[in-house]
């Protein structure tokens, strides 16, 4: 059963949206339909955070609990709001009294021109909803997606680090149970849809509904977080005719573990699986913390990052290096392939009509395996990689020392698709690592790739860095075996 309405809480008020173009972003909706101008448009591309709002949603892991997530309203379509509570900067004041997240910014002189400020307030609000005493690292992680051009950030960091423990319960805490109850009611509603300006949106609730929707409308555009797709609308003025939202599909939004694998639903946001991956592969977890920013990781998904087949997505090379697989689904039929085999050419994949990515399976590590990941970008936070290198190395100790018995060197940003380096791998496979061997592998890499020059980096830089990362990996492996560990990464310096 499908009902043509999107229902959500606008702060505490139940709102129905009908007859609105589903290409409308939450930011446009707030400013133009609700006449709420506190949320600002800085870039309309999810890069500056001025439009940050907070969504509260029922926590599937802990029933009766809410999760508060900061998101970029400029690249979120209105249909995605269904079943959630939308909180904007206007909702934080309690009568005349500023919220902790607001008052601390005032007290620390953390606003100058004030245009980015509502976004910082909302990111800080979301942070404090789950962490009343955040440390500096946690503050930086929560606010990395908010740009300020005036303050230089010190005052903003000081404000966000101010403990909210002693602060009286805010209005959201006071209305907590009501909100949970209201959202639980919304969960029971039929499958929501939205039609406006002749364009359609539907949010299937389970995998069968999704498969059927795609069989019926094979030209539908799948949207999960929409962090990339929405740019087509806001930047290139594209109009998407039929949107199918994956975020409500139960089977696509779970994470499961078996003895040998981690199985991640294609439409599960990064922030919901980062901890698990960090546990098994610390360097992968650290890299994910540098994908987009908090707002992007709260909505962006693994399926989306792979699905759009961008040559600069950060997850595909990591998954290729890990030998991860993905399960594809079409009309009840499923197949599982290596992530590595998914990419055909620039933005071209093996995905068939009506087929979608259901899940990604990542093998758990075993003894002797190492995963090294390097993300190279101009800016450390919230930047697209010039080069992303992911090295999976399995070594066996025999009488003569360590020998590489399995190796996958995968790169992003080096070719039209994320890709392994067969020549460099061939040099290393079956050998014991040495300085000379690394030099040979670096030379071989030059035959594996002919990278491009673009706005982010020159071809020469990309190749030089890619080669040097093999050397760095070697030095780090040496260092790990040595007694005195040498620092090799500037990102480890606070």
């Amino acid at each position, binding site marked *: 059963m499908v009902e043509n309405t999107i229902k959500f809480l606008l702060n505490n008020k139940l709102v129905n949206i009908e007859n609105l173009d589903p290409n409308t972003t939450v930011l446009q909706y707030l400013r133009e339909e609700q006449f709420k101008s506190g949320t600002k448009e*800085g870039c309309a591309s999810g890069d500056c955070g001025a439009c940050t709002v907070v969504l509260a949603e029922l926590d599937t892991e802990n029933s009766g609990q809410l999760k508060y997530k900061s998101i970029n309203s400029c690249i979120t379509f209105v249909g995605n709001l269904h079943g959630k509570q939308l909180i904007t900067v206007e909702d934080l004041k309690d009568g005349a009294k500023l919220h902790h997240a607001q008052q601390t910014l005032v007290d620390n002189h953390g*606003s100058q*021109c*004030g*245009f980015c400020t509502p976004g910082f307030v909302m990111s800080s609000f979301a942070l404090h909803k789950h962490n009343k005493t955040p440390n500096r690292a946690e503050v930086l992680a929560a606010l990395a997606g908010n740009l300020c051009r*005036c303050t230089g950030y010190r005052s903003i960091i000081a404000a966000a680090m101010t403990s909210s423990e002693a602060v009286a319960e805010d209005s959201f805490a006071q209305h907590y149970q009501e909100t949970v109850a209201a959202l639980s009611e919304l969960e029971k509603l039929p499958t929501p849809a939205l039609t406006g300006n002749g364009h359609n949106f539907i949010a299937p609730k389970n995998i069968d509904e999704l498969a059927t929707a795609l069989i019926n409308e094979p030209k539908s555009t799948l949207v999960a977080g929409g962090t990339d797709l929405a740019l087509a609308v806001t930047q290139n003025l594209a109009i998407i005719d039929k949107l199918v939202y994956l975020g409500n599909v139960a089977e696509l939004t779970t994470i499961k573990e078996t003895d040998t694998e981690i199985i991640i639903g294609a439409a599960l946001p990064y922030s919901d699986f980062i901890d698990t991956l960090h546990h098994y592969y610390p360097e992968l977890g650290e890299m994910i913390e540098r994908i987009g920013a908090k707002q992007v990781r709260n909505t962006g998904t693994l399926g989306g990052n792979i699905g759009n087949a961008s040559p600069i997505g950060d997850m595909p090379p990591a998954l290729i290096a890990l030998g991860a697989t993905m399960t594809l689904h079409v009309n009840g039929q499923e197949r599982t392939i290596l992530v590595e085999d998914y990419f055909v050419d620039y933005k071209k994949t093996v995905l068939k009509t009506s087929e979608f990515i259901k899940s990604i399976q990542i093998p758990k590590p075993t003894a002797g395996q190492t995963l090294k990941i390097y993300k*190279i970008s101009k*800016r450390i936070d919230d930047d697209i990689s010039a080069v992303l290198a992911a090295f999976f190395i399995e070594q066996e100790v025999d009488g003569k020392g360590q020998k590489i018995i399995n190796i996958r060197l995968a790169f992003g940003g080096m070719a039209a698709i994320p890709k392994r380096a067969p020549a460099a791998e061939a040099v290393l496979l079956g050998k014991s690592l040495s300085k000379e061997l690394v030099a040979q592998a670096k030379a071989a890499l030059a035959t594996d790739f002919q990278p491009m020059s673009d706005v982010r980096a020159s071809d020469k830089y990309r190749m030089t860095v890619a080669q040097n990362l093999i050397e*760095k990996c070697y030095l780090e492996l040496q260092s790990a075996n040595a007694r005195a560990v040498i620092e090799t990464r500037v990102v480890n310096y606070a």
Partner: protein
Amino acid sequence: MRSLINVEKFAVKKADTLKIQSNTNKSLIDGQKNVGLGGVGRSKKHDSADKHVAGEAIYVDDRPSLRGELHAAVGQSAYAHANIISMDLSAVKAATGVISVITVEDVPGHTDIGPVFPGDPVLAIGKVEFIGQPLFAVAATSFDLARRAVKLAKIDYEELEAVLTVKDALAKQNFVRPPFTMKRGDSDAAIKGATHQLSGEINVGGQEHFYLEGQVSTAEPTEDGGMNIFTSSQHPSEVQKLVAEVLAIPLNKVLVDMRRMGGGFGGKETQAAQWACIAALLANETKRPVKFKLARMDDMIMTGKRHPFENNYTVGFDAQGQIKGINIEVNGNCGYSPDLSDAIVDRAMFHSDNAYYLDQATITGNRCKLNTVSHTAYRGFGGPQGMMTIEMIMDDIARHLGKDPLEIRKINLYGKDDRNVTHYHQTVEHNNLSEIIDSLETSSDYQARRQAITEFNANNTILKKGLSLTPVKFGISFTVQHLNQAGALVHIYTDGTIHLSHGGTEMGQGLNIKVAQIVAEEFQVDVDTIAISSARTDKVPNSSPTAASSGTDLNGKAAQAAAKTIKQRLIDFACEKYQVEAGQVHFENSNVIVGEQSFSFAEFTQLAYMGRVSLSSTGFYKTPKIHFDRATGKGRPFFYYATGAAVSEVIIDTLTGEYKTLRTDILQDVGHSINPAIDIGQIEGAFIQGMGWLTTEELVWNEQGRLLSNNPATYKIPAINDTPADFRVALVPDAPNREHTIYNSKAVGEPPFMLAISVWAALKDAISSINDYKTSPALDTPATPERVLFAVAAVKAQAAAAAK
């Protein structure tokens, strides 16, 4: 009246008493002596702070739509240089929602809106000179429909040869304004006669302003053919003049209202006007209100940036490293039109000395014309680009002589009584830089950290650390003399509340609260009783742009003058009514004391009103002492200098070129601070913005002249993690400006921007360590990881060659 400041006691305290940690900024802020109820010297919060955090501060785009409001967009040139053969706009006109389409043919008045010199057509006239130049304008019923409609135009061009590099412009002598030289003595002979000679060159990149609020204006037609303009502009009076000129109506029919900007940084000094003019033209055509808001990418493509520069030098110096003679050539990439480039390249020339005595000097500045967007004002206004050369020279000399660059910087500082005349013949007075540097060297533990870093670098093969201390001396005043004036208007109402207007614009820098503090100080009333509203051209006319760090200096004095006028009337009234001497009338603690009687300020204004005293006054100020004769290159262009210094420590990765700034210590002289919290905010913000300019903010144009870094996904300003974890900012204590500025304060908007040069020099220091500090690495800016890696490779190659 007690004297607020004892100028004789000017002295920089001993270094150990200046040691102020970043974490104690708060105590510094709170600890400032409250010199009066009005609160000059107090860290009052920004007057809009509560509104900022609540989402209640209204920017132009947040204003409620006016009845019938339309939205504008413009068609953009696809070529860098071309004649327009024809424009077929039929599909644009027929597009959904389009109400009006105009070209330059439809402009009733002036078609050129160049701010100083002609050259900036409001809409293209027969030819285009950069990719993105506005060709025609559309008014439609929504922002979205307007943006869609402009894409439907069919334009035929005849492509012309484009000049897209500074080298090409120099070869062709393609200039927007004639070259200019400042000269003192015989530099060629001095260089030749010196013990050592060096030469070099550097490319200094430009910078996108990236104000968080993009360009936006709303034009509302009024009766009598007039126009009300709500705009995000640093220069309302110029917007008023240009709107009047394009519409061919007198200035008194145009009202410009500017409540606040979401950042300006110079990007809204001249280049906000075009969008206001286009909105006004469309509003005039349709007789409906028109809003023109630039989408971020359009803003980045269609508005000018900080000028990229390509500079070179030849220097002669003695065995100690002291400069004896120097030739510097600065070549500014001005883009296609003059805009403010004449004054910007002048300022680059004025600051080619930074803090150092150049002795025999020849400084030449070229204003290169390229087929890119017209570059414009940006915090520092050419000064930063000028300083880069001399700071590079300091490092080059140091490496050549095997000395610490700090030693070379110190030995070349301007003297107090001699070696104190600039290459434009202004005497550097009240120079406190050697004290500032000594103090900072001690408080930042420079020497101990220098040793620790050398040791770290010896023990680490991949990561290297670098350290650098650089000073800033920045000239304060518009170098165009007539701009150094300001007006203000103060009203006192019968309940004792005060309304304040001045010619300056609030872009986040805290100008309004500072000026309100000054007025509050004058009347000794609570600053919260003073309302500050929009800068409006009908309240304060003929205002200068809020630029050149001059906002508080000029408008603060003007507002003080207005307040003093009213205050004198109140004193005269008191004397007459209560038969007392003027000396028996005091303003204290929100009261007026008249002889033995005391009235609340509100009561007394009520009495004055009943006594028919005018409670409203204008005020005016013009900066004294300044003059400059461009024909001889001599004069005193600056009323005074703002000074400061920074020490930055960085770490770099020699395999990838990645880096981080680990710690920065700043000591800045802001004179007697009117508001320490606001000043510290300006210093921190300017430093980080400067660091972005020199590190990650890379403007990339392709071979056709198209800007590729045209959105925040490809153009990276500093994010929160880029702020040094250890960031210590201090103000020089007890340092009233010895020139008679407002409350002896000093300007703060621009000077600390250039303290970020310490980060660039520290990166070079780290790279230099690879060859045992024998090489001065060439490092163009922005010093992206890519540039750092290639500089590392070059130094490694030199080290290897030397080892053979």
